[in-house]
Protein backbone atom coordinates (compact mmCIF):
# COMPACT_ATOMS: atom_id res chain seq x y z
CA UNK A 1 0.00 0.00 0.00
CA UNK A 2 1.64 3.25 -1.18
CA UNK A 3 -0.39 5.50 1.12
CA UNK A 4 -1.24 5.06 4.81
CA UNK A 5 -3.02 7.23 7.36
CA UNK A 6 -2.47 6.09 10.94
CA UNK A 7 -2.39 7.27 14.54
CA UNK A 8 0.60 5.13 15.51
CA UNK A 9 4.24 6.04 14.97
CA UNK A 10 6.32 4.68 12.08
CA UNK A 11 9.82 3.25 11.79
CA UNK A 12 11.45 4.81 8.74
CA UNK A 13 14.24 2.21 8.64
CA UNK A 14 11.79 -0.69 8.65
CA UNK A 15 9.57 0.99 6.05
CA UNK A 16 12.53 1.62 3.73
CA UNK A 17 13.81 -1.94 4.16
CA UNK A 18 10.37 -3.30 3.30
CA UNK A 19 10.14 -1.06 0.23
CA UNK A 20 13.56 -2.11 -1.09
CA UNK A 21 13.31 -5.80 -0.25
CA UNK A 22 14.21 -8.04 -3.17
CA UNK A 23 14.50 -5.23 -5.72
CA UNK A 24 18.06 -5.08 -7.12
CA UNK A 25 17.04 -2.41 -9.66
CA UNK A 26 16.79 0.26 -6.96
CA UNK A 27 19.86 2.50 -6.91
CA UNK A 28 18.52 5.43 -4.90
CA UNK A 29 16.27 5.94 -1.90
CA UNK A 30 15.19 9.47 -0.95
CA UNK A 31 13.15 10.03 2.17
CA UNK A 32 11.62 12.88 4.13
CA UNK A 33 10.32 12.91 7.69
CA UNK A 34 8.23 15.81 9.01
CA UNK A 35 8.48 16.27 12.77
CA UNK A 36 6.40 18.15 15.35
CA UNK A 37 8.25 21.26 16.65
CA UNK A 38 7.88 22.77 20.13
CA UNK A 39 7.12 26.26 18.79
CA UNK A 40 5.37 27.89 15.82
CA UNK A 41 5.29 31.59 14.92
CA UNK A 42 7.10 32.44 18.14
CA UNK A 43 4.63 30.63 20.43
CA UNK A 44 5.29 27.45 22.40
CA UNK A 45 3.33 24.42 21.20
CA UNK A 46 2.58 21.71 23.75
CA UNK A 47 0.34 19.43 21.69
CA UNK A 48 -0.66 19.26 18.05
CA UNK A 49 -3.82 17.52 16.86
CA UNK A 50 -4.05 16.46 13.24
CA UNK A 51 -7.44 16.06 11.66
CA UNK A 52 -8.19 14.77 8.17
CA UNK A 53 -11.03 14.00 5.79
CA UNK A 54 -11.24 10.20 5.75
CA UNK A 55 -11.85 8.91 2.24
CA UNK A 56 -10.66 12.03 0.47
CA UNK A 57 -7.25 12.00 2.16
CA UNK A 58 -6.29 8.61 0.75
CA UNK A 59 -7.54 9.54 -2.73
CA UNK A 60 -5.70 12.87 -2.68
CA UNK A 61 -2.41 11.23 -1.63
CA UNK A 62 -2.77 8.44 -4.19
CA UNK A 63 -3.33 11.07 -6.88
CA UNK A 64 -0.16 12.93 -5.80
CA UNK A 65 1.85 9.68 -5.88
CA UNK A 66 0.43 8.84 -9.33
CA UNK A 67 1.41 12.30 -10.58
CA UNK A 68 4.96 11.88 -9.25
CA UNK A 69 5.22 8.52 -11.00
CA UNK A 70 4.02 10.12 -14.23
CA UNK A 71 6.62 12.90 -13.98
CA UNK A 72 9.66 10.84 -12.98
CA UNK A 73 10.92 7.32 -13.58
CA UNK A 74 10.34 5.92 -10.08
CA UNK A 75 10.10 2.47 -8.58
CA UNK A 76 8.36 2.36 -5.19
CA UNK A 77 6.74 5.25 -3.34
CA UNK A 78 5.44 5.26 0.22
CA UNK A 79 3.59 8.02 2.08
CA UNK A 80 2.67 7.54 5.76
CA UNK A 81 0.86 10.39 7.52
CA UNK A 82 -0.14 10.34 11.16
CA UNK A 83 -3.34 11.83 12.57
CA UNK A 84 -4.55 12.43 16.11
CA UNK A 85 -2.66 13.93 19.00
CA UNK A 86 1.09 14.51 18.64
CA UNK A 87 3.73 16.01 20.92
CA UNK A 88 6.90 17.97 20.06
CA UNK A 89 9.60 15.61 18.65
CA UNK A 90 6.93 13.17 17.39
CA UNK A 91 7.12 12.16 13.75
CA UNK A 92 4.24 13.40 11.56
CA UNK A 93 4.85 12.29 7.99
CA UNK A 94 7.13 9.96 6.05
CA UNK A 95 7.74 10.04 2.30
CA UNK A 96 10.02 7.45 0.70
CA UNK A 97 10.81 7.39 -3.01
CA UNK A 98 12.98 4.79 -4.73
CA UNK A 99 14.39 4.87 -8.22
CA UNK A 100 17.37 3.84 -10.27
CA UNK A 101 19.18 7.15 -9.71
CA UNK A 102 19.17 9.92 -7.12
CA UNK A 103 17.98 12.79 -9.34
CA UNK A 104 14.44 11.56 -9.80
CA UNK A 105 14.21 10.23 -6.24
CA UNK A 106 15.19 13.60 -4.69
CA UNK A 107 12.92 15.60 -6.99
CA UNK A 108 9.90 13.33 -6.57
CA UNK A 109 10.26 13.27 -2.78
CA UNK A 110 10.20 17.08 -2.63
CA UNK A 111 7.35 17.28 -5.15
CA UNK A 112 5.22 14.86 -3.11
CA UNK A 113 5.75 16.90 0.08
CA UNK A 114 5.00 20.21 -1.67
CA UNK A 115 1.78 18.83 -3.13
CA UNK A 116 0.80 17.10 0.13
CA UNK A 117 1.16 20.43 1.96
CA UNK A 118 -1.30 22.18 -0.36
CA UNK A 119 -3.64 19.43 -1.65
CA UNK A 120 -4.10 16.70 0.96
CA UNK A 121 -6.94 17.41 3.43
CA UNK A 122 -5.12 17.53 6.77
CA UNK A 123 -5.47 20.29 9.36
CA UNK A 124 -3.32 21.02 12.40
CA UNK A 125 -4.57 22.46 15.66
CA UNK A 126 -1.99 23.55 18.22
CA UNK A 127 -2.30 23.79 21.98
CA UNK A 128 -0.31 26.78 23.22
CA UNK A 129 -0.04 28.47 26.64
CA UNK A 130 -2.53 31.06 25.24
CA UNK A 131 -5.04 28.38 24.24
CA UNK A 132 -5.81 26.28 21.17
CA UNK A 133 -5.42 27.64 17.63
CA UNK A 134 -5.75 26.25 14.13
CA UNK A 135 -2.58 26.50 12.06
CA UNK A 136 -2.99 28.93 9.16
CA UNK A 137 -1.97 27.85 5.68
CA UNK A 138 1.24 29.55 4.51
CA UNK A 139 1.57 31.29 1.16
CA UNK A 140 5.15 29.95 1.00
CA UNK A 141 3.66 26.44 0.77
CA UNK A 142 1.53 27.51 -2.22
CA UNK A 143 4.61 29.00 -3.85
CA UNK A 144 6.59 25.79 -3.23
CA UNK A 145 3.86 23.76 -4.95
CA UNK A 146 3.48 26.27 -7.81
CA UNK A 147 7.09 25.91 -8.91
CA UNK A 148 6.38 22.34 -10.09
CA UNK A 149 3.83 23.60 -12.60
CA UNK A 150 4.96 23.36 -16.19
CA UNK A 151 6.37 26.70 -17.38
CA UNK A 152 3.75 28.92 -18.99
CA UNK A 153 3.83 29.05 -22.75
CA UNK A 154 5.71 32.09 -24.03
CA UNK A 155 3.39 34.93 -25.00
CA UNK A 156 3.72 35.75 -28.68
Amino acid at each position, binding site marked *: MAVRIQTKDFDAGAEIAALRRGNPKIGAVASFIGVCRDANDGTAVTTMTLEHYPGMTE*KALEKIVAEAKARWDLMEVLVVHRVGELKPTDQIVLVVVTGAHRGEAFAACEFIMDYL*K*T*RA*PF*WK*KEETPQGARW*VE*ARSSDDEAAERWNPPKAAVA
Partner: protein
Amino acid sequence: MKIKVLYLASLREQLGKSGEDLEISPATSTVAALRTVLMARGGAWQTALAQGKALRVAVNQEMAQPTTPVKPGDEIAFFPPVTGG
Protein backbone atom coordinates in the same frame (compact mmCIF):
# COMPACT_ATOMS: atom_id res chain seq x y z
CA MET B 1 -32.49 17.30 -4.46
CA LYS B 2 -30.81 15.62 -1.52
CA ILE B 3 -27.12 16.22 -0.82
CA LYS B 4 -24.73 15.66 2.06
CA VAL B 5 -22.68 18.61 3.29
CA LEU B 6 -19.63 18.37 5.56
CA TYR B 7 -17.85 21.13 7.51
CA LEU B 8 -14.30 20.31 8.55
CA ALA B 9 -11.62 21.60 10.94
CA SER B 10 -11.94 25.28 11.99
CA LEU B 11 -15.08 25.68 9.86
CA ARG B 12 -16.83 22.93 11.87
CA GLU B 13 -16.01 24.82 15.07
CA GLN B 14 -17.19 28.15 13.67
CA LEU B 15 -20.48 26.65 12.48
CA GLY B 16 -20.96 24.32 15.46
CA LYS B 17 -21.82 21.49 13.06
CA SER B 18 -19.83 18.71 11.36
CA GLY B 19 -22.31 18.11 8.57
CA GLU B 20 -25.93 17.69 7.53
CA ASP B 21 -28.18 16.10 4.97
CA LEU B 22 -29.83 18.86 2.96
CA GLU B 23 -32.74 19.10 0.58
CA ILE B 24 -31.92 21.88 -1.85
CA SER B 25 -33.58 23.38 -4.89
CA PRO B 26 -32.37 22.08 -8.28
CA ALA B 27 -31.53 25.74 -8.96
CA THR B 28 -28.68 25.39 -6.45
CA SER B 29 -26.67 23.69 -9.13
CA THR B 30 -23.09 24.77 -8.36
CA VAL B 31 -20.72 24.95 -5.41
CA ALA B 32 -20.93 28.77 -5.49
CA ALA B 33 -24.75 28.65 -5.39
CA LEU B 34 -24.69 26.27 -2.44
CA ARG B 35 -22.29 28.56 -0.58
CA THR B 36 -24.68 31.47 -1.14
CA VAL B 37 -27.64 29.41 0.16
CA LEU B 38 -25.71 28.49 3.32
CA MET B 39 -24.53 32.08 3.86
CA ALA B 40 -28.15 33.24 3.75
CA ARG B 41 -28.68 31.48 7.10
CA GLY B 42 -26.94 34.52 8.61
CA GLY B 43 -24.90 34.71 11.81
CA ALA B 44 -21.86 32.42 11.88
CA TRP B 45 -22.80 31.09 8.42
CA GLN B 46 -22.66 34.54 6.90
CA THR B 47 -19.28 35.23 8.55
CA ALA B 48 -17.55 31.89 8.10
CA LEU B 49 -18.58 31.42 4.46
CA ALA B 50 -18.18 35.08 3.40
CA GLN B 51 -16.69 35.54 -0.07
CA GLY B 52 -13.39 36.98 1.18
CA LYS B 53 -12.71 33.89 3.35
CA ALA B 54 -10.14 31.44 2.06
CA LEU B 55 -12.22 28.28 1.77
CA ARG B 56 -11.75 25.06 -0.12
CA VAL B 57 -14.54 22.83 -1.35
CA ALA B 58 -14.50 19.18 -2.36
CA VAL B 59 -17.29 17.49 -4.30
CA ASN B 60 -17.36 13.72 -3.84
CA GLN B 61 -13.91 13.91 -2.24
CA GLU B 62 -12.27 15.69 -5.18
CA MET B 63 -11.12 19.32 -4.98
CA ALA B 64 -13.75 21.51 -6.62
CA GLN B 65 -14.15 25.05 -7.99
CA PRO B 66 -17.02 27.52 -7.48
CA THR B 67 -18.37 26.45 -10.86
CA THR B 68 -18.30 22.71 -10.10
CA PRO B 69 -21.82 21.26 -10.52
CA VAL B 70 -23.79 19.96 -7.53
CA LYS B 71 -25.89 16.89 -8.31
CA PRO B 72 -28.33 14.75 -6.31
CA GLY B 73 -26.53 12.47 -3.84
CA ASP B 74 -23.28 14.45 -3.90
CA GLU B 75 -21.06 14.80 -0.84
CA ILE B 76 -19.88 18.40 -0.60
CA ALA B 77 -17.24 19.34 1.96
CA PHE B 78 -16.30 22.88 2.97
CA PHE B 79 -12.98 23.37 4.75
CA PRO B 80 -10.12 25.85 5.30
CA PRO B 81 -6.87 25.66 3.30
CA VAL B 82 -5.00 22.50 4.30
CA THR B 83 -2.07 22.43 6.73
CA GLY B 84 -0.74 18.86 6.84
CA GLY B 85 2.78 17.55 6.44
